[in-house]
């Protein structure tokens, strides 16, 4: 029960932070079965583009008010794609205001192809249980893995992400 003072402060603020930010829920199984067409339809809605290809793609989904660990992971993926030729990375930011989303990307120097979901349609359509999350779609567009963002960001995490659950 004895926690470091610093950690205790975090514990005490956790109740609010957990509400504000996306956090972990391990029961994602229902979401692996969402057909690719539902995802592509959703993306077409928010981007007003006819078709977004999600095959062989890591899709990152987060709100603009995510806490530092999620943003740190975002930076990792941003660096990762600079040398990555095989796997695509795309980003959805759930944010009502275009300026806020744009400033967030500028502030974090994010160059990942990004789309804004202004009404949290992704949750309304129940494509994900919560945010922030990353989803890996294989070369056939099947969902291979769904994980929370903001835990770790490294090569092992990436390799694990590509494994079937």
């Amino acid at each position, binding site marked *: 029960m004895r926690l470091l003072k610093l950690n205790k402060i975090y514990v005490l603020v956790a109740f609010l932070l957990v509400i504000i930010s996306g956090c972990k829920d391990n*029961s994602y199984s229902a979401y692996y079965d969402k057909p690719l067409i539902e995802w592509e339809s959703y993306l077409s809605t928010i981007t007003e583009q006819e078709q977004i290809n999600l095959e062989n793609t890591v899709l990152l989904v987060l709100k603009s008010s*995510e806490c530092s660990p999620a943003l740190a992971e975002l930076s990792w993926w941003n660096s990762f794609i600079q040398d990555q030729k095989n796997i695509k990375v795309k980003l959805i930011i759930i944010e009502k205001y275009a300026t806020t989303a744009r400033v967030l990307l500028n502030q974090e120097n994010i160059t990942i192809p990004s789309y804004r979901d202004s009404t949290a349609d992704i949750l309304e359509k129940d494509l994900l249980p919560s945010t922030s999350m990353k989803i890996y779609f294989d070369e056939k567009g099947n969902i291979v893995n769904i994980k929370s963002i903001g835990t770790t960001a490294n090569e092992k995490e990436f390799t694990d992400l590509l494994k079937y659950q």
Partner: protein
Amino acid sequence: MGCANKENSNSPQLALNKINSIVLEQGDLLFGKFHEHMKISPDGEYFIFTDRIRNKVFVFTKNGSFHSVLGEGGRGPKGLIQVVGFDVNQNNEVFIFDASQRLMKLFDLEGELLHTVGMFENTPFSVTAFGMEWYDGKVLTSILEDEFLNETHQSNLMAIMNMDGSLDTLFGTHDPFTKVDNQFSFFSEIAYDVRNNELITNLESSPYYQVFDMETLEQVAYGGGPSESYAKPDSDVDMYAPISVKFKKLTDTSGMAHIFFTDRYIIQHMQILTEEWFKTTDQNAKKNILILHDRDTHQFIQEIPIESIIVGAQDNRLYFFEDLNPDNYTIGVYEIIEAE
């Protein structure tokens, strides 16, 4: 917990009257993801906010012009990692408490660092406030004593900290509501009234507030109570439960986001959580209600539903975030009047 408060039929109906509207000058440096706490300098010249993501403090003039940024990223002399409290005094000095570094940093409004001191390093309690306030050259904050983590109602409520980092004194006790609180909240909103030397506190999950005389540090009033729109969760909310479970339990329940005062009223700002807010974290997606009580008798007066978030009160004026769009970030200024 007793019956719900009924509107006092002897009191005139109250309403909000808009006095002014201020649009904040927003540059590309700003997110507009401000915390729902705003500090107003005692002379009324400056508005001060923290940004939720950048963990810096932003200063605007009363006309909405951008003035300065206090702090910077990292752990350098001006570095801030996790801002959990700040306030401005009559000398326009701003203290900022960084929980991550456990440092209290003092800035002027031009962004110059005046002083840094370690704080809350070896204290037998934890800080439980997003709102900290200046008090007679010291810092006032709500706390929870380590030994009462599971018996919150027995813990001291407030700490006065000296600006050399030492503890001055502890006083008050947590709201007895914690004994029946099924959200198990530790957080209290606070508002210090310099003119009357009174402190008003409100546990975020409780419909009740406490008033302390800062001369004696004794509780002098316990007011409030469940009003018509107040709603507790039906069952216990386990803070370690999956987020989806927590969302379900907390939807359509109440929380006290702020406590304010004017010369005549104590004002609780109650928010009712909505599914839309859980999904989007758009602050205006919550239902917002002001609950007014008579400042002298502590009698409930009425609820006033509001369309936006109240974030400050000073000199009998109430300040609302009316438009959170960074391109048109607008603060509305209101007064309470008797409705015709």
